[in-house]
């Protein structure tokens, strides 16, 4: 099912004017920020389709910038986010893309991490009502909605990696709702994406990181309720 629960229909709480072009774009930006795992020093934003045609009027550019600053969809700072991004030291540019794209509302992001210089290329689509899918991360095909706690594991494509990952999940009592694996080539770099029913704990991430073939582990979670609670527990 594309839409999984009642709050993907009633919601999100958001700053206008468009759920797909503003709230969805903010969520794509925020998901990208979480995949990068650090603030971005550079962000090159390319819009396609309806996004390209109408992004200024809908504040899609501001929404992406706000998401990259880790703002929620109803953050009242969203309208000023481009200025805030520049103040925070992010060089952000916007353009319109040509060529094939997977959905009328498509955006491609190229990010550079401020701390490590890590580069990330990510494609997201906004499918309506503020709901999104991340469909490509560094050339790996994925399908990531951010509605569930999601663990991204970069690893080498060896025999048994998936078995060891799911074994860690089983021992930690984490149920997997959706799973995908894509690899560049046989025995090459691979990315596994796991949507979980429960929020990933530091212990789980630590265990996964320690597995032999695993290179990095990231978490994406756009669940608003959870984000609010996190905000209360520890200021991010």
């Amino acid at each position: 099912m594309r839409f999984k629960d009642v709050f993907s229909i009633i919601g999100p709480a958001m700053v206008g004017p468009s759920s797909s072009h503003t709230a969805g774009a903010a969520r794509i930006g925020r998901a990208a920020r979480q995949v990068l795992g650090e603030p971005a020093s550079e962000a090159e934003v390319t819009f396609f389709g309806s996004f390209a045609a109408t992004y200024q009027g809908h504040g899609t550019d501001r929404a992406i910038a706000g998401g990259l600053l880790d703002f929620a969809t109803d953050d009242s700072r969203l309208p000023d986010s481009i200025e805030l991004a520049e103040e925070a030291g992010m060089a952000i540019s916007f353009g319109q893309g040509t060529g094939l794209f997977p959905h009328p509302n498509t955006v491609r992001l190229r990010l550079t991490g401020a701390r490590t210089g890590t580069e990330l290329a990510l494609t997201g689509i906004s499918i309506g009502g503020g709901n999104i899918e991340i469909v490509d991360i560094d050339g790996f095909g994925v399908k990531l909605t951010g509605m569930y706690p999601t663990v991204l594991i970069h690893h080498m494509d060896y025999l048994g990696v998936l078995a060891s990952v799911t074994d860690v999940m089983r021992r930690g009592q984490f149920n997997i709702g959706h799973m995908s694996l894509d690899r560049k080539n046989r025995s090459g770099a691979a990315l596994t994406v796991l949507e979980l029913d429960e929020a990933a704990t530091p212990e789980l991430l630590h265990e996964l990181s320690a597995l032999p073939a695993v290179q990095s582990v990231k978490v994406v979670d756009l669940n608003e309720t959870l984000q609010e609670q996190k905000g209360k527990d520890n200021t991010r």
Partner: protein
Amino acid sequence: MNFQTLSQLAVLCEERGMGIGALMLEEQSEESGRSREQEFATMSQYYGVMKEAVHRGMTEDTTSRSGLTGLDAQRVAAYNAADEPCLGGPAGQAMAYALAVSEVNASMGRIIATPTAGSCGIIPGVFLSCQERFGWDDDYMVSGLFAAGAIGYVIANNSFVSGAEGGCQAEVGSAIGMAAGALTELRGGTPAQAVHAVGLALKNTLGLICDPVGGLVEIPCIVRNGFGAVTALAAADMALAGVRSVIPSDEVIKVMLEVGSAMPEKHRETAGGGLAQTPTGRKIMKDLKNKK
């Protein structure tokens, strides 16, 4: 969720002896793994945001950044109060509230997407005006939001709810169907009647294109929200009176998918056709570009 269609939803309600709203709360809690109280509390917060948006739109300056829209809700309310409106009391109130929320959205204010921001005025317009009129408490309205959500969930998964995919019928049309079905239940209709209300409402917006002038969620989106609230009241009345959707509502939803899939790209939120490409629409777009 244990239902994928409206007819399955109605059957499930009958089997469990509960309304659509109560059933959706149960299903939602099961899906999310959070307690019913938690999910109900989140929806209550959302209803609070809707109330706030109505209040802002009725009292504050809602002129949009483009300067094209704003304050129409207050114009309608003033006219309703001072003159003898064609529509009359409760429907006029629903229309004013729906315009108010849409104007808050267009001026980058805080709203709840129901199911989208472009259609965010319809459910608050219908819900708040009816709450005042019938003296319902907030918890009752929140259960109504779960009912609206259940209907929207079926529409979204069997068709679409974004203008870029399926035109305005998918946004404003879906919102009217959701409001009509939920209101039918709130007024004491059966789940089967609520489902009929959805089909009756959706039939009235089939084919509606998404043609925002200048690409902005302003013209014609805002007035369509005002009209939408009135239509939802009408559809609920028809269903409560025993009018049936002869073509079953699930089949109407499939028609929306068929029509939206055949809709040219220029009529799906790209501002490449329709009202956006009229001589006046083009002039507005040009003026906006020059302003920047």
